[in-house]
């Protein structure tokens, strides 16, 4: 098991190298440079040249990347090229906001979604099932920024129940949490429904009923335990999708999270900050996926056995 975790974490290294290389070089190649924002009309060409040298812009991109990576190897993510603040510090100061929001939405989403999904699966084919399917499809089709704005218009401007944005007090959590939880709920409920439907057809449920297990326990103990894997996957995916898409919700609700930080960095051509944000988000991303994978082992002994044997899967021909 530990071997499996270590292997997965080691795999992070080449991924991070590839990701940082790609992002760094792409950003660097983009038209315009970071000093465009710093140049003023009073500057002489010499001043500009000095500025270019200061940012190593006279050297090839590989030089800059190598220098960046050298820093990274020593645990130094560098400083923002625009503000000069340490990348690590700005990330750490913004991260809690994103984390809190994502946890709130995952909790709300899961708590709502699993009962809804089970309900829909057990009522499959009835009007109730169609209603929940409709609801989840709409939930999935709604762009989160639009939903966020609608909620703002209604609850912040029309009836002024919640603040229009910002990050203080519990009431400021309500609207952003609803927005992101809705997506989560829709996705997870749909997945729960279909994996429950699959499991409800399974032979071992018949075995359970044949030995007199009450229906309530058949669902809770026998069915749900088997349906967990795809549900977990979806929750993990939702969580990572939230990390990826947090920029949108954070923009709508002026939420000081890492999503906005990254957007700002990219639009200001702040290569160091952008790269740092991408690398750190990637690490989070991979960790979320790893945790989900480890949870699989927790719910399914077959997967646990696979991890224990090193985790490589190969088909054995009969």
């Amino acid at each position, binding site marked *: 098991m530990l071997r499996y975790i270590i292997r997965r974490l080691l795999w992070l290294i080449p*991924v991070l190298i590839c990701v940082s290389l790609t*992002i760094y070089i792409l950003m660097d190649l983009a038209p315009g440079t970071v000093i465009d924002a710093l140049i003023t009309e009073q500057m002489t060409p010499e001043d500009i040249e000095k500025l270019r040298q200061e940012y190593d812009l006279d050297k090839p991109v590989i030089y800059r990347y190598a220098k960046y990576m050298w820093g990274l190897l020593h645990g130094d993510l560098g400083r923002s090229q625009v503000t000069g603040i340490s990348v690590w510090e700005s990330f750490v100061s913004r991260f809690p906001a994103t984390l809190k929001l994502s946890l709130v939405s995952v909790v709300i989403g899961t708590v709502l979604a699993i009962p809804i999904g089970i309900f829909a699966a057990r009522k499959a084919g009835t009007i109730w099932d169609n209603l929940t399917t409709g609801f989840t499809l709409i939930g999935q089709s709604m*762009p989160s920024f*639009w939903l966020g704005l609608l909620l703002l*218009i209604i609850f912040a*401007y029309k009836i002024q129940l919640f603040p229009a944005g910002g990050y203080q007090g519990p009431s400021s959590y309500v609207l952003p949490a609803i927005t992101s939880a809705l997506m989560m709920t829709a996705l997870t409920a749909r997945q729960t429904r279909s994996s429950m439907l699959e499991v409800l057809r399974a032979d071992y449920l018949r075995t359970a009923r044949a030995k007199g297990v009450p229906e309530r326990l058949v669902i809770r103990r026998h069915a749900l335990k088997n349906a967990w894997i795809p549900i977990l996957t979806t929750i993990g995916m939702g969580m990572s999708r939230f990390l990826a898409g947090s*920029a949108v919700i954070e923009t709508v609700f002026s939420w000081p999270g890492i999503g906005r930080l990254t957007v700002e960095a990219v639009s200001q*051509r702040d290569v160091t900050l952008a790269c740092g944000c991408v690398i750190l988000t990637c690490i989070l991303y991979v960790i979320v996926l790893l945790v989900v994978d480890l949870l699989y082992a927790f719910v399914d002994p077959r997967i646990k056995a696979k991890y224990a044997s090193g985790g490589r899967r190969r088909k054995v021909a009969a």
Partner: protein
Amino acid sequence: MTTATNTLVSRKYAKRSNAAEVWHRLKSNKGAIAGFTIIVIILSITLYSILFISFEEVTAINVQNRLQPPSLKHPFGTDDMGRDLFLRTLYGSRYSLLIGLGGVSISLIVGLILGSIAGYFGGLVDDLIMRFSDFLASIPTLLLGMVIVTVLGQSLPNLILAVGVTAIPEFIRITRSSVLVVRNQEFVEAATAIGMSHLGIIFTQVIPNGLSPIIVTVTSRIGAGIIEAASLSFLGFGIPVPHPEWGLLVSEGRNYMRIAPHLTYFPGLFIMVTVFAFNILGDGLRDALDPKLKK
């Protein structure tokens, strides 16, 4: 035998083909029909806007008319520069459809090729392709999109490319797994036994049978692509103003939420309805193509 010489026996017993069978089942799925109808309506709106609405018409500034609420003359009201939002929204449908369809085509083609190679041949090729896919998948999609658009410049083709590239890993994975399922079936062995080559098997046996999950992914991915592009536009990484792309329209409306919320309502509604149509169609297709439901 003598009378049958000029008619094919198979014609005598002609019946519904597989595709016709799927269509038949799709027709009895109310959701799929609804989705299909909405898509047809949106397509005709797009066609109408291409034929009858000019770019000048939707970008001409008319300050006297600014921020009017919806009325008979301006069904969706007007924006901060007095432009008719109804025309702008209709005009904008082309972007979303192009992005959705174009983006999916890119990821579909790349994903289909790489995924089937990985699934069919396995071994080292499989490992390499899957590592590539993992790497691509570990960059958050919106971020990757932002970087691509930033590097290549804000334009429609680049937005399509950005949406396309981010969906590649999903298509690689789904193609690979459906190829893996099919390729271990006995009828593939039967094809080998009649001397079929790898290429022949991939095209006549594996792809036709592995297609259903891919088709379903395509439809739902079109919707996701439209949302992704709209989100990029909303964040300022989309098609530049004054092109009336839906995400951009919502983003413009954001500045007038208090006084003119209609600027936010309508373009967003169009995004949602379009995406919903593709999603519900995909849902219906999933049922219609599911071999488990076949008798």
